[in-house]
C-alpha cells in the first residue's frame, strides 16, 4: 500500500508540474509552481527520459511479443483496413486519437515511426512491452504512467488495425 501511495504521490506531483504550463494563459490559476521546468519539459520532452532512440533504430525495433515478422506488401487491403478501423474505434479510441495525444500517443503517422511488428506487439503484448521494450518504456513515462491496456485483440484483428493505420498514414 505504502508503495502505491508513494507512487501515486509522484504521479500526482508530475501532474501538478505538467498542469503548470497552462498557468500563463489562465488568469484564474493562483498556483505558479515550477513553471520554468515545465516550459523546458514542453519544448524538449524526450530529453527528460534520458534515452535517445534514433528514428532508424526505432523502425528497426520489432518489439517483444508473438509477432516476429509481418509481410505488409505495397498496397492496402481495403477490406482489412475497414475491419481494422471498426476494431480500433471500439477498443482503442478511449485512449488514442489519430490527430492528437490523448491518454496515449497520437497514432497518426505511427507506421512511419514504428515497425509493423512493433505496432502489433504493442497491441497484443502491452504488459511485457511497457516493462521491457525501450520505446514502450519511454512512451509510458511520456503518457504519465498510464499503462497501455491489453484489450485481448486477436492476431487477425491486430493485423487489421495495422492495415487501418497504414491506410490512414497513406491518405493523411
Amino acid at each position: 500500500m505504502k508503495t502505491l501511495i508513494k507512487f501515486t504521490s509522484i504521479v500526482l506531483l508530475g501532474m501538478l508540474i505538467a498542469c503548470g504550463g497552462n498557468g500563463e494563459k489562465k488568469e484564474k490559476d493562483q498556483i505558479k509552481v515550477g513553471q520554468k521546468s515545465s516550459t523546458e519539459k514542453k519544448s524538449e520532452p524526450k530529453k527528460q527520459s534520458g534515452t535517445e532512440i534514433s528514428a532508424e533504430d526505432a523502425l528497426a525495433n520489432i518489439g517483444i511479443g508473438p509477432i516476429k515478422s509481418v509481410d505488409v506488401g505495397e498496397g492496402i487491403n481495403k477490406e482489412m483496413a475497414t475491419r481494422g478501423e471498426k476494431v480500433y474505434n471500439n477498443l482503442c479510441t478511449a485512449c488514442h486519437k489519430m490527430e492528437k495525444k490523448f491518454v496515449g500517443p497520437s497514432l497518426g503517422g505511427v507506421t512511419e515511426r514504428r515497425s509493423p511488428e512493433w505496432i502489433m506487439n504493442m497491441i497484443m503484448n502491452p504488459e511485457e512491452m511497457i516493462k521491457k521494450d525501450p520505446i514502450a518504456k519511454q512512451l509510458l513515462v511520456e503518457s504519465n504512467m498510464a499503462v497501455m491496456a491489453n484489450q485481448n485483440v486477436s492476431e487477425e484483428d491486430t493485423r487489421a488495425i495495422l492495415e487501418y493505420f497504414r491506410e490512414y498514414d497513406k491518405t493523411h
Partner: protein
Amino acid sequence: MKTIQKLLLGLGAGLLLIGCGNNSKDGSSGAMASSNAEKVYVAPGEHDEFYAFLSGGYSGNLTVYGLPSGRMFKEIPVFSQFPTNGYGYSEETKAMLNTSFGFVPWGDAHHPDISQTNGELDGRWVFINENNTPRIARISLETFETEEIIEIPNSAGNHASSFVTENTEYIVAGTRFAVPNPQRDMPIDEMKGEFKGPLSFISIDQEHGHMNLDFQLNMPGFNYDLAHPGRDKSHGWFFFTSYNTEEAHSMMEVNASQNDKDFIAAVNWQKIAEYVENGGGTKVAGTYAHNTYDESTMTATTEMKEGVISVDPRNVEGAVYYMPVPKSPHGLDVDPSGQYIIGNGKLSTQLSVYSFDKMMKAIEDKDYDGDAYGIPILSFESVLEGVVDSGGLGPLHTEFDGKGYGYTTFFISSEVVKWKIGTWEVIDRLPTYYSVGHLTIPGGNSRKPFGKYMFSMNKITKDRYLPTGPELEHSAQLYDITGDKMELLLDFPTHGEPHYAAAIPAELIKSKSKKYYELEENNHKYAAKSEADTRVERNGNEVHIYATTVRSHFAPDNIEGIKVGDKVYFHITNLEQDFDVPHGFAMIGANTSEILVMPGQTKTITWEPKREGVWPFYCTDFCSALHQEMQGYVRVSAKNSNTKLRWSLDDEWKE
C-alpha cells in the same frame, strides 16, 4: 505477517522432521500438527484442489471457498442486495429480487446443490433455496453469477430444497411449514387436516438451465424438512423427511414431538411427471415471480406467473408412500449405490437405514401398516435394513466417501461419526467445535464422491477464534478422510450461516470460468460500446447518461444541465477487454449503491440529485496508478433553470 512467519517456520520444522524419517502418524503431537499444516498449505500462487460453495444462510448469499486451504474467494449475491457490486440495486439486477410479495431485498439461503449428469457432478450450475420467501436460484459456474430465481407458490418454509436429480431433470422444493393451500383466512387452531405441505418439482431445461415449475404434489400438512433424490438403482424416486405428523400449531418443540414415529415420504417422481405429461393434475391458483438474467442484454426481467398443476398424491397409483422413522427426523440421505436411504431421527441416538429393495418389495406385497390421509404407510420392520447405533446424540446429516463409508453429524454430542455401509458398525468418531449441522464431502451426496476431505459446518463458534464481541461468524472444520481414522486438519471461519455446502474438484470447472465479457456480445439496451457512443439524453425529468470507463477516465467526465428533481440513470459500460480490470462507479448522495462493472459489461445505477451544486463521481475500484484521477463532475442546477444539457471529456463539449 507474524502468522506467516510462524507458519513458514512451522513448515520448515515439519519438513526437517519428515526429512529425518519421522513419518509416523503416532508421533508427537508437534509432528502431527506440522504434517497437518502441510496438508492444508496451498503455497502462494498455487490453486486449491476443490471449490466449495457454502450457503450464506441469513446473508442470503453463497460463498466460494477453496479446499484444503479454507480460503474464501468470493461471495456470490443471490437472494440479498449486495452493495459491493450493486446486485439488487442496479437497474439490471433489481428484478432478480422481485416476488409475488413485491421486492424482497433479503433471503435465507440453505442448501446448495451442483448439477449432475448420470449421478455425477457436472459443474454446470449450482442451485440454492431460499427458505423464508420460497424461492430457488440457479447460479452459473462459468460467470459465478445468479442467473435465475423462481418463486415457489403455495409453499412456506422452503427447506426440503434444492436437491438435484441425477440428470438434473428436476430440482425439488418441499414445504417445511404446512399452510392452507390455497391460502385463506381461517382459525389457526383448525389446521389439522386443513393445512397442506406441497412438494414442488421444478424441471430444468438442459441447454440453458431454465427452471419451470412443473407440478406440485399436494401432500398432507406435515412439515417436510429435508430431501434426497434416489441414485442409480433408486433413480426416479425422491425421499423427504417430515416432522410434526401431530399437526400441532403451537408450542411445537413439545407438541410436534409427541408421536413415537414420523414419516419419510417416498415419491416416485417419474411416475407423477408422466401422469402430469398425460394431462393429470389440476391447475390451481398460485402467483409466483420468475426472474431471469439474460447474459447478452445483461438485464434481469420478471415474469409474474399464475397457476400451477397440483397433483393429489392419492390419484397416482403406486407413486407415494410413507415409511415410519424415529421421531422428528431431520436429514435424509441416500448412499451412492442408491440402495440405502438413511433417516436421521434427530431426537434419537440411532440412524435408521432403509433398503430400497425392501421398500419395493413391501410396496409389491402391499405390506402396509395403515395409512395417513389415504397414503399407504409401509410397515417399519419390512423396510428397515439396519441401524447405526453409535451412542451419539442428535444425528442430523450423512455424506458418503465412495469407499463404503458414511459420515454422520451429531448435533447434540457435537461429533462426526464414520460408519461402514452394510455392517453399520462405527469405525471412528471425532469431536467438532461446536454443535455441527451439515457436513460436506465433494460429491458426497452423488453417485461419485471424491472422498479426500470432509468438512463440518458448526453452529457454535465460541472460543475457536479471537473474540469479536457477542456476534460471531460460524466455523467450519476440515478433516482428512483418506485413512481409517479421520484427522482434523483446519478450522476456518464462514460467512452467515452455512447450512449446507456443495464441493467439486476444481478441474471440473476452473477452465470454464469466464474472464471477461466480450464487448461485441454486449447487447445491453443502454451500452455505449466506444467513447464515440457516449452521450446524455433527457426525456422529461429522466436523464440517461451513456458513459464508458477505461483506465483511467470516464467518458464523459463533465456533465451539465442536470436539474434538482431529475432522475439520472448512469449507464456505465466498461470498455476494458482483459481479465480482472473492473471499474467502479459511485455518485455522491446516491440513495442506491455503487456498482462494480466487469470488463465488457454495462451496469446502471440511478441518482436523484436533491441540491444544486457541482457534484463529483469517481471510480471505486483501484484500477491503475491513475485511479485517483478517475473522477468526474455533474453540475446540478435549479429545477427551473435554463442550464444547457451538455457533456464533455477533455473540454470537447457536446450537446
